[in-house]
């Protein structure tokens, strides 16, 4: 440093560090897997507590990523009859069911023009890896109607590359409206009981109107059917974060 006037150069303090508090931002948006939330019933909470401990143990060993219905997953399971003792299946998650250790998810794919659905248990010791290939939510919680949709909507390439996630932000919702095969379907998806928004119904008007006969408009006002899980969820979230940090 060249000193002018023979004096030492003026001390320039370093720029102040900008603290971006990512931890608090992340806390707000933590995902709680639905199988942790106990169902409403007369079972003792001890059962769910014990199950949760086992689930956390398993999660420490195997990384179960955050996924919703509509994501495309690749699951590697152990298979004694395969040549390298493991089997890989890629498919779209149709539904997630069960609570506790018996939580399952069903993956669907169409392989060589044959639709295949496999129901995996999340906490089964046979599962070796779960990778999320494509992240996108759909308009419904249950995509079982893909069985009656045209096969192109359920085909996914087995050697698909994982689509990189943009940033740790919202999961995009795919507002795709699926076209169906001609009727008869396995279930009458046009009925309001299923409340499906992701199908492009090409049925005539009178059929859609006739389906509305089965609507139960009083059900939304039946207050005792609501299950408010906010407090339970908060407790379980705290428990999970404590356990997983150990």
């Amino acid at each position, binding site marked *: 440093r060249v000193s002018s006037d023979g004096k030492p150069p003026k001390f320039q303090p370093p720029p102040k560090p900008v603290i971006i508090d990512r931890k608090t931002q992340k806390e707000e948006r933590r995902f709680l897997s639905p199988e942790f939330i106990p169902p409403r*019933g*007369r079972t003792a909470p001890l059962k769910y507590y014990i199950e949760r401990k086992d689930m956390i143990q398993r999660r420490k060993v195997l990384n179960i990523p955050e996924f919703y219905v509509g994501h495309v997953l690749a699951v590697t399971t152990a298979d004694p009859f395969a040549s390298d003792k493991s089997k890989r299946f890629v498919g779209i998650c149709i539904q997630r069911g069960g609570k506790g250790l018996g939580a399952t998810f069903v993956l669907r794919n169409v392989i060589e023009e044959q639709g295949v659905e496999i129901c995996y248990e999340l906490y089964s010791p046979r599962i070796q890896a779960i990778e999320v290939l494509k992240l996108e939510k759909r308009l419904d919680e249950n995509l079982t109607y893909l069985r009656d949709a045209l096969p192109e909507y359920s085909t996914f390439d087995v050697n698909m590359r994982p689509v990189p996630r943009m940033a740790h932000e919202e999961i995009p919702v795919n507002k795709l409206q699926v076209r169906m095969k001609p009727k008869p379907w396995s279930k009458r998806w046009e009925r309001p009981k299923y409340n499906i928004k992701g199908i492009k119904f090409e049925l005539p008007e009178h059929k859609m109107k006739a389906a509305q006969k089965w609507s*139960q408009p*009083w059900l939304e*006002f*039946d*207050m*005792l059917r*609501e299950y408010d899980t906010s407090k339970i969820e908060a407790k379980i979230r705290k428990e999970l974060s404590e356990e997983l940090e150990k």
Partner: protein
Amino acid sequence: MRLSVAAAISHGRVYRRLGLSPRSRLDLLRNLVTALVRHERIETPWARADEMRGYAERLIDYAKRGDKDERAMRMADFWLTEKDLIHKLFKVLAPRFQPHPGSYTRMLQIPNRDGLDRAKMAVIELKGNALPPLVRPRRDSDKTLLNQLLKGYRQDAQRAAAA
């Protein structure tokens, strides 16, 4: 050969079957809730009062959210058939029960109905209403042995303190 029992088992069902259909059950309970909000104390068959209690308390929980809340207003609109009671619910009942966390109703059984059916009746009321109380709290009578002994002990203590 019958392998399964065709018995009337309803494991874990929480809702009673009232009226002609599920819609009719909700309509029945809706009328009762409206009557409760209007008169604050009603006499009905016990089963109906029991079903109605849960709905009435949840309605007050919704009302506590305030009348700006869209969902609360829709619920109140559905559950109260007489629309002047919506104002009463949000402006009178919600502030009255604001300090309480829950249990806004009291249900007591009554002698059976006088008609042919001799139905089990109950009276259900909102707490804090302006009507005379249903149960008069009785104080212990002074003439029981224990109370007499306690009275004597208190008098002895007073005399010892005065002396």
